[in-house]
């Protein structure tokens, strides 16, 4: 065939004239050109193009093809639950659904309109928007996320209706989804944080432990045709989703709510402008039992600002509103307990005192003179007691919270040692707590610290530490000198309950000896005992603590009504002889009636401790005075003769009032086993007539415990005390209203609260 191509027949003479018959040269030539054009140029180009696509771009094209052929359905993993230390749920994910549409499967406008109408009605969406979505050619278009059960049922109905009436199938599908719920709303908002719309942790533990909580989303990979139905040949691979791990916090919901209650009240009472912080820590382990930033925010609605903030922003020019909104939100979410520094003030004196004791620079016999002012390097530094404290022992200096004395103590310790201990107490490094956004301290760097700086640092001024660092240091002072690793998550378990990670007590170092620590407990306990309410005295418990009032130095714009802005704080622990729980309470910029720590923070501390210590079942250790107000159970005196009953009641420590003329006791008030304060009045009724007798309840509010007891005696009533009845505490609530008529002997429960104390002791 090849040879055939070459003309065997003689070519015609070279004349331009065309031959009369047979395939002539020209036609052969032109046919050859035609063959070359079609086969070489045409087929060559086609083959070249195919080779380019298959060999050069092949893998890329195949990838894209596989992408569209494999339907990849993500199975959402259930986010782990967050529990408190008792197993109370603080955050959990509940099943909701998302509505997804495959608009490409609509066959006509009638179907589109029906679907859009139905969906917009059920889901409260704009009809036109939904209609617009139905017109696209896509296979996957999310209509609405996180719908609840009722809406889901309505959508299911709609799907059936579309199928029956419009022959429209495979258009709307419901996919599983989850929504995060926080059953306690604001509770522990600064610790828990919240998760976003895609269940991603954004703040707090939700953020810090996101990789544990999130779980692994599963996938179903199926080969699908363009309609989204499965292909005849099967290719399906299921990767099950793995639910997120559960997290157990060290936070105790009960303690947390007690703290939040009183912190919120403290913020309101003292018109605190920059939030209040309260941290309760287990002294022995470093576990955070409660962490409060007050006011908090509703975790179920974290994007809504408080009403005042909203008003303030609405008043701003429009171009600033969005920016301001963002700033306000991040300020609201900010965990002041770890992310902000503050000047600890006199609270820090417990550290200064510890280091001086540890170094042996001071002892019980050391004396310090305070003349109201002390000059260091020509800088006069004042004491809060303008007249000075005169000559005082070491312990007195602490109790007086005397600044000049502590300047001297600081000088005794010396700059280098002071810095070493500062570091030793853990102030120089981040505490390492498992919460996001922890801030560094602000302290003088090596070599920059002057004697004046040392002097002011000795009483906690002019440097910044975070509240979590302060409470950790306080715990170290209390627990024998061990600086612990603070933490909020005690363990992580998988969905089946197996422990994935568990956090143990971790000692970073021992900064002071046990002996020093014991001495400090003794001194701080003594401080509380002698100063009473102003220093956190809690009835029935030996509490150690130190107040603090720090000036906010370097504040550009004064906010409060006082001459300067202050931070009122109290840091203490209980019981002093065997410390269990330490607590730091501080209010940033109070702008109400008082700003001293002893006036603002101490009562809050007392109120919290009064409820928390019994909850922790810490053994009581009542003083003589306190015993008077302690409840005892009334015995059974009915059926006895009047004389026997009276004798028995008096033997039990009650006084008796006999009513009626009968010989035997037919009824008693308070009833058997009911709680009455020691020395209460048992009313014994001897006949039916006497039972009808009534007394009018007086107003107890404002009375101290002693006064209330006396008043109750006059009215033949009994009282039972609840709350902080320690010196200075007053009645704020009574269980039976004033003016009501009750039978004599009825027990009226009085709720006490430590009021803003009268005196102060910084």
């Amino acid at each position, binding site marked *: *065939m090849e040879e055939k191509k070459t003309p065997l027949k003689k070519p015609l003479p070279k004349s331009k004239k065309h031959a009369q018959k047979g395939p002539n040269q020209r*036609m052969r030539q032109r046919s050859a050109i*035609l*063959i070359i054009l079609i*086969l070489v140029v045409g*087929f060559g180009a086609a083959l070249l193009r*195919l080779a380019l696509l*298959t060999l050069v771009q092949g893998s890329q094209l195949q990838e894209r093809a596989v992408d569209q052929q494999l339907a990849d359905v993500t199975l959402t993993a259930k986010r782990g639950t967050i529990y408190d230390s008792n197993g109370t749920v603080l955050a959990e994910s509940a099943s909701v659904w998302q509505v997804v549409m495959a608009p490409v499967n609509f066959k006509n406008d009638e179907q589109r309109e029906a679907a859009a109408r139905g969906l917009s009605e059920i889901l409260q969406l704009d009809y036109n928007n939904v209609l617009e979505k139905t017109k696209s050619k896509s296979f996957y278009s999310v209509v609405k996320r996180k719908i609840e059960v009722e809406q889901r049922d309505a959508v299911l109905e709609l799907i059936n209706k579309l199928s029956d009436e419009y022959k429209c199938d495979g258009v709307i599908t419901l996919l599983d989804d989850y929504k995060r719920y926080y059953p306690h709303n604001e509770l522990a908002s600064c610790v828990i944080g919240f998760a976003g719309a895609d269940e991603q942790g954004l703040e707090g533990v939700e953020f810090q432990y996101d990789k544990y909580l999130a779980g692994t989303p599963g996938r179903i990979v199926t080969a699908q*045709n363009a309609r989204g139905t499965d292909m005849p040949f099967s290719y399906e691979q299921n990767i099950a989703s793995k639910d997120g791990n559960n997290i157990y916090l060290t936070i105790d919901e009960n303690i947390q709510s007690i703290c939040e209650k009183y912190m919120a009240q403290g913020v309101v009472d003292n018109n605190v402008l920059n939030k209040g912080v309260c941290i309760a820590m287990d002294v022995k382990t470093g576990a955070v039992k409660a962490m409060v930033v007050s006011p908090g925010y509703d975790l179920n609605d974290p994007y809504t600002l408080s009403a005042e903030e909203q008003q303030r922003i609405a008043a701003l020019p429009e171009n600033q509103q969005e920016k301001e909104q963002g700033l306000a939100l991040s300020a609201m979410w900010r965990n002041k307990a770890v992310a902000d520094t503050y000047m600890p003030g006199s609270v820090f004196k417990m550290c200064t005192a510890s280091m001086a004791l540890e170094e042996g620079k001071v002892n019980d016999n050391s004396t310090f003179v305070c003349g109201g002012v002390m000059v260091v390097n020509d800088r006069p530094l004042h004491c809060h007691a303008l007249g000075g404290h005169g000559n005082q022992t070491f312990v007195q200096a602490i109790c007086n919270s005397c600044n000049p004395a502590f300047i001297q103590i600081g000088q005794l310790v010396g700059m280098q040692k002071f810095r070493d201990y500062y570091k030793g107490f853990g102030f120089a490094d981040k505490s390492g707590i498992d919460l996001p956004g922890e801030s560094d301290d602000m302290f003088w760097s090596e070599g920059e610290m002057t004697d004046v700086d040392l002097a002011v640092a000795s009483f906690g001024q002019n440097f910044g530490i975070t509240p979590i660092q302060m409470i950790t240091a306080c715990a170290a002072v209390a627990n024998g000198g061990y600086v612990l690793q603070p933490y909020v998550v005690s363990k992580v378990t998988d969905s089946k309950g197996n422990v994935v990670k568990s956090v143990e007590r971790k000692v970073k170092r021992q900064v002071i000896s046990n002996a020093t620590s014991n001495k400090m407990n003794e001194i701080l306990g003594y401080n509380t005992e002698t100063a009473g309410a102003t220093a956190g005295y809690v009835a029935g418990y030996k509490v150690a603590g130190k107040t603090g009032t720090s000036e906010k130095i370097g504040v550009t714009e004064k906010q409060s009504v006082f001459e300067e802005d202050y931070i009122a704080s109290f840091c203490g622990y209980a019981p002093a002889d065997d410390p269990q729980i330490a607590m730091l309470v501080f209010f940033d910029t109070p702008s109400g009636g008082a700003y001293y720590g002893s006036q603002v923070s101490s009562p809050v501390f007392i109120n919290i401790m009064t409820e928390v210590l019994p909850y922790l079942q810490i053994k009581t250790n009542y003083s003589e005075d306190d015993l008077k107000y302690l409840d005892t159970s009334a015995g059974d005196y009915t059926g006895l003769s009047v004389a026997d009953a009276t004798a028995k009641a008096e033997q039990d420590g009650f006084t008796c009032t006999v009513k009626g003329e009968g010989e035997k006791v037919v009824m008693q008030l308070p009833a058997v086993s009911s709680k009455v304060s020691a020395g209460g009045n048992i009313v014994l009724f001897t006949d039916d007539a006497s039972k009808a007798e009534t007394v009018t309840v007086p107003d107890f509010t404002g009375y101290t415990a002693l006064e209330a007891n006396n008043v109750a005696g006059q009215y033949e009533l009994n009282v039972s005390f609840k709350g902080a009845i320690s010196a200075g505490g007053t009645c704020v609530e009574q269980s039976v209203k004033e003016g009501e008529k009750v039978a004599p002997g009825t027990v009226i429960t009085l709720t006490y609260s430590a009021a803003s104390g009268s005196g102060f002791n910084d």
Partner: protein
Amino acid sequence: MAPNKKMLLRGDVNRIYDEDYRRRQKAKKEKLFVRPTRQRKLKNAKWFSIGMGIDLPFCLIIFILLTVGTIMMFSASYAFAYYTVGDSYFYLKRQLIFIGLGVAAMIVMSFLNYNKLHKVAPFVLGFAYFCLLLVLILPSGEGGVKRWIPLGMFNVQPSEIAKFAIILFFSHWASKYYNKMHLAKYSVLPGVIVFGSVAGLLILEPHYSGIVIIGVLTVIMLYIGGMKTRYLAIGAIALFGVILLLAITGGLSYAMSRMDGWGQALTASRDSELWDSTWQTRNSLYAIGSGGLWGLGLGQSRQKFLYLPEPQNDFIFAIVVEEMGLIGAAIILLIFALLVWRGITLSLRAKDKFGKLLGIGLTSQIGVQVVLNILVITDWLPNTGISLPFFSYGGSSLIMLLAQMGIVLSVSRTANIEKQ
């Protein structure tokens, strides 16, 4: 008629001029000069032979392509048929019927003396015009285009008839006025008149790919027929001018809308208009790319599952590449190339110019369509709807195609070509 020298040497002079002898000689001659119409009646008419029968290699290539094409058409269509009609064999069954009809037509045509077509050539052209006009007055089909005349079981595309009519007419014209073809009056003028009128009617349908193919075929016929190369160059410039003019006046609305996504199939963003308009081309590219060197294997295409719309039609070769890979595609292209080669070379050996031109024209039509089809599915040309001969599903076009191959085979009967 020269006397038989052997007989002369034998001295058998009488026998030389014997009446019987003359008759035998005449019959022999007639047999040699092959008149298929008459030959049909002959008992010894051969299917395949030297000098007398059809060209075996060409015939073999046709059947190879038909077989491979049908298998691939079935493979490409069954998913689409399953989802749209509910019967996976829908297209295969119908295609087999068309092949039966087409092969019958091919056999009939192969026995037809193609010289008879000389006389009918103008009438066929007239019939093509009639069909082109008829389709315009019939109700329009999907998308407002009028391309098909419905004939019960299958639809006839007038443009298919027009392609054949043009080849036939110019074969007739160029062989008739062969020695005058160098004159513009006999080459350019009829070319412009016939092509212009047909193209005008096709624009009304509209069917732009038909215009392209008919234009190319007209040029090929005139060029092979003897038109001066100079005119070809002038024609090319004129064509460019016309396109420019149409572009300015916006007469290319439909084609332009189809060209919208030309070359942008892979870059179009989702949810854009372009995404939808380039859907078919993009999925064709995905299919080709997925094939790689060796392909996914016969029947293993994924893209035919509704991703590539109507995979049994114009875009069938994309599925072929996906399943058979570049190697398979190259082999198929090689078979097509052999067909074109054999068709043109055998045509050149034909006894007369009409046969040569007819054979070359009909064969090159296949080559041109294959090249244009592959360039379309690979996005080097805009998506204009050019089917792949022997592979694409289609009733009228397949029957027409096989009938045309029958004509080439008929030409091959006269061809002085060594037949194996």
